[in-house]
């Protein structure tokens, strides 16, 4: 067999396996339902019309075709053919699967105890409601057709005229960007800054009013996770300490707010602001107390200990021992909101503003710290703790400081979170939440502020966007998380190091002299 053919069969087989997996979890039906919905059917049946399932088959074929045709510098016909072979091979695998399914259907074998989705209706639907032999044939054909299409698509994409068109577009964009940069870096720089800031301010003021309570809630959560993420970034991204139980500090903030502000169990009824401040302080103190015994630990040992700390906090909060003080598993409710100038802040819009404020504060502090002696000390510790210490960095102090400030950020986010939900309970602060925060800063790009924002969108916004995928949403999320790491190992927006103007003339070549003896 020639290598070209073999090269096409490999992606075909991969897609075939993916397809088999999709069918066995019933994902093909969901895709068909989504197709139906897109094309205007309001309430598609659980088994949508065959045409949508056919569309699914073609889509899978296209995927196989594109996968096979990529990286091929050949002429149109060959590439299309490669796509056809890949699609066809995937189709044959799909056909084999359907053949098996048809046997199950005809012989009336009950496999649902193992593979739940394979009901008779489902199998009939997968066979497009046709006779099994016919269904298998149609499947193979559709896959092959899709594959050819995919191959053709790639070929067209690679074709000279299209590439030329593309290049022109890219050049145009580049030129305009450069021109814009010229504007922003020239003497109009200030103007540009003012313009962008005022645009930002406008957006911040008006957007929450207009995008409804759902988006306010989701984006509010994203905002709080930005604050959390920046806090964790100080510990992980800047000072290089892998903290896995970060949500514990969030919990401390949330519970401080809850216990001080809510009517039960203590009826302290503090105002929002003092409770917020105390929550932040308590979280910071917790960071200090946790940090003290752990300063000798490195890397993964620190990770597991902080993970343990997170679990300790969660279990204690829900334990029988502390039920009288923390509400136990029931949590605390009726947590109040803030009052600003006599006006109570209670609606979703109000909280959005509050969260934006917290986010801006966190970003401000983070960026200020990042480029200072403190920030450089953290970075040096991250890079090489031993050398940093020998260069005069008091590593213990700076590592503690990173934990404390990071914890304070988390406490801030937690306090606002509890107040916004009017409720907090121990299960809010589970290990999965810590893992989410860690994931978001790495997906976004360790240490970078825009990266953190991006990561928060990806980690907290994406699952909401994926709601269309129903039960498959976390499956898709897990797969996307892997895919994001594979395609962008440094995160979406990796952090950059600051550039400094050279303040002295290189020509002088002057050795610095010790002169000041004051």
């Amino acid at each position: 067999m020639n290598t070209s053919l073999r090269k096409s069969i490999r992606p075909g087989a991969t897609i075939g396996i993916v397809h088999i997996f999709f069918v066995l979890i019933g994902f093909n039906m969901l895709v068909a339902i989504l197709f139906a919905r897109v094309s205007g059917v309001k309430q598609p049946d659980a088994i949508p019309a065959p045409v949508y399932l056919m569309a699914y088959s073609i889509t899978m074929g296209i995927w196989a075709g594109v996968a096979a045709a990529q990286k091929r510098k050949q002429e149109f016909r060959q590439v299309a053919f490669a796509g056809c072979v890949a699609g066809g091979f995937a189709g044959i695998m799909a056909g084999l699967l359907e053949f098996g399914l048809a046997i199950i259907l005809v012989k009336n074998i009950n496999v649902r105890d193992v593979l739940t989705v394979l009901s008779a209706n489902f199998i009939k639907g997968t066979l497009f409601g046709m006779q099994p032999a016919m269904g298998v044939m149609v499947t193979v054909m559709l896959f092959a057709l899709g594959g050819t299409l995919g191959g053709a698509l790639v070929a067209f994409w690679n074709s000279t005229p299209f590439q030329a068109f593309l290049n022109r577009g890219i050049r145009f964009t580049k030129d305009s960007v450069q021109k814009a940069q010229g504007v922003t870096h020239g003497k109009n720089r200030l103007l540009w800054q003012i313009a962008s800031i005022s645009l930002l301010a406008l957006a911040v003021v008006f957007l929450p009013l207009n995008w409804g309570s759902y988006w306010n809630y989701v984006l509010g959560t994203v905002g709080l996770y930005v604050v959390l993420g920046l806090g964790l970034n100080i510990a992980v991204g800047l000072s290089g300490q892998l903290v896995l139980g970060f949500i514990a500090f969030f919990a401390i903030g949330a519970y401080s707010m809850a216990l001080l502000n809510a009517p039960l169990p203590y009826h302290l009824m503090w105002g929002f602001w003092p409770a917020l401040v105390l929550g932040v302080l308590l979280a910071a103190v917790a960071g200090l107390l946790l940090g003290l015994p752990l300063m000798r630990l490195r890397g993964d040992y620190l990770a597991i200990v902080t993970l343990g700390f997170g679990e300790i906090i969660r279990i204690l909060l829900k334990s029988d021992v502390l039920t009288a003080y923390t509400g136990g598993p029931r949590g605390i409710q009726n947590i109040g909101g803030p009052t600003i100038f006599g006006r109570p802040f209670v609606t979703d819009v109000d909280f959005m503003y509050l969260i934006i404020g917290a986010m801006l504060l966190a970003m401000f502090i983070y960026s200020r710290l990042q480029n200072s002696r403190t920030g450089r000390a953290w970075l040096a510790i991250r890079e090489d703790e031993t050398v940093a210490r020998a260069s005069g960095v008091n590593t213990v102090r700076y590592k503690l400081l990173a934990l404390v400030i990071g914890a304070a950020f988390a406490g801030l986010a937690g306090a606002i979170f509890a107040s916004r939900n009017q409720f907090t309970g121990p299960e809010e602060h589970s290990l999965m939440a810590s893992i989410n925060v860690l994931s978001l800063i790495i997906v976004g790009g360790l240490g970078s502020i825009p990266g953190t924002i991006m990561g928060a969108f990806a980690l907290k916004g994406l699952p909401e966007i994926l709601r269309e995928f129903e039960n498959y949403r976390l499956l898709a999320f897990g797969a996307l998380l892997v895919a994001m790491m594979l395609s962008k190992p440094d995160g979406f927006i990796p952090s950059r190091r600051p550039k400094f103007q050279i303040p002295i003339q290189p020509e002088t070549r002057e050795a610095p002299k010790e002169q000041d003896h004051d």
Partner: protein
Amino acid sequence: MHALSLPTLAVKGARFKKVAHVFDLLRPILGAIVLAFIAYRLYQVLIVQQEYGADTWTRLLISGLIIGGVYALIAIGYTLVYGILFMINFAHGEVMMLGAYAGLFAFQAFNAIQVGGQAQTSFLNAYPVLAILLAFVIGMFISAAIGYFLEKIAYRPLRKAPRLVPLISAIGASIFLQNAAQLLFSPQLREVTNPDILRRGAGWTISINNANVIIPYTGVFTFVLSVLLLIALYIIVRKTRLGRSMRAVALDKKTAALMGVDVDRTISQTFIISGALAGAAGVMWGLHNGMVYFYVGFIPGIKAFTAAVLGGIGNLPGAMLGGLVLGIVESVGPAALGIDFQLKDVLAFVILIIVLTFRPSGLLGEVLAEEKV
């Protein structure tokens, strides 16, 4: 020559102050307080209250050893990957879960096959040893295959990436595998059919204080299996060519490659072995605990990771020791200190923190008393 003057940095030049390493001073005090507290509680529980009799203590100890055996079994696979790649394979628990499913279905199938002439029995009970062996082979094979593909798809492309990136990829893979299992097999809790000779709950009975204390067969099996696998793995790592390659890769990938070690292959093999261990742990889990569902890998995975760190991660006997210590602390600890069993995980993690405070590299990990230069 007129020199450029240097700006003053600090107002009074470099002041040096003695940094008080507060905690270095506090550490012995902390240790003394903890020890005193433990001694006091032990005195209270054992001497003053005398809450539990010898039978209860024996039961607790047996329970601890068995739980510890399970943790150890999972932790060995964890620590193997860590020892070679310095990577936390977060999806290890999920690989184990899929192994448990494989075992579940294998036993189910064996139970459905009827053999024998007149006295119809299932294959499972007619040839129980063979059936168990086969189930283990199937479970280990499935898990090994998943381990292999996991490495190939999710970790290998990231080998040169920063250390935390494969960790996140592993977390993603873990979420994916968990949900895939839920969607494939439904979220139902399933019951493993044990062969009669290894019935759950059955065991040797000993009599202490006129109370029957049962040592369950499955528990002993778990314990023995984890010891055997540990020994087998130790031999592989220490005595075989593959083990030599593994150790070489662990020390320095580049140099190993220059010396003719196929690094990719070695790492693949590591994951296959680690997956097979997870599969064995999964099948064992099903036999001993009986419950299999998609979430079954998560908590044991975390616990096993804890055990591996407690023992000194990367160290094989350390994983075993860590697992056993963790199991015993969880079972005996709350009773001995007279606290709620709900807080057993708190106790376990507190012990972990204390151990790491005094031995920053775990119980059997190499001790870096001084900074490495």
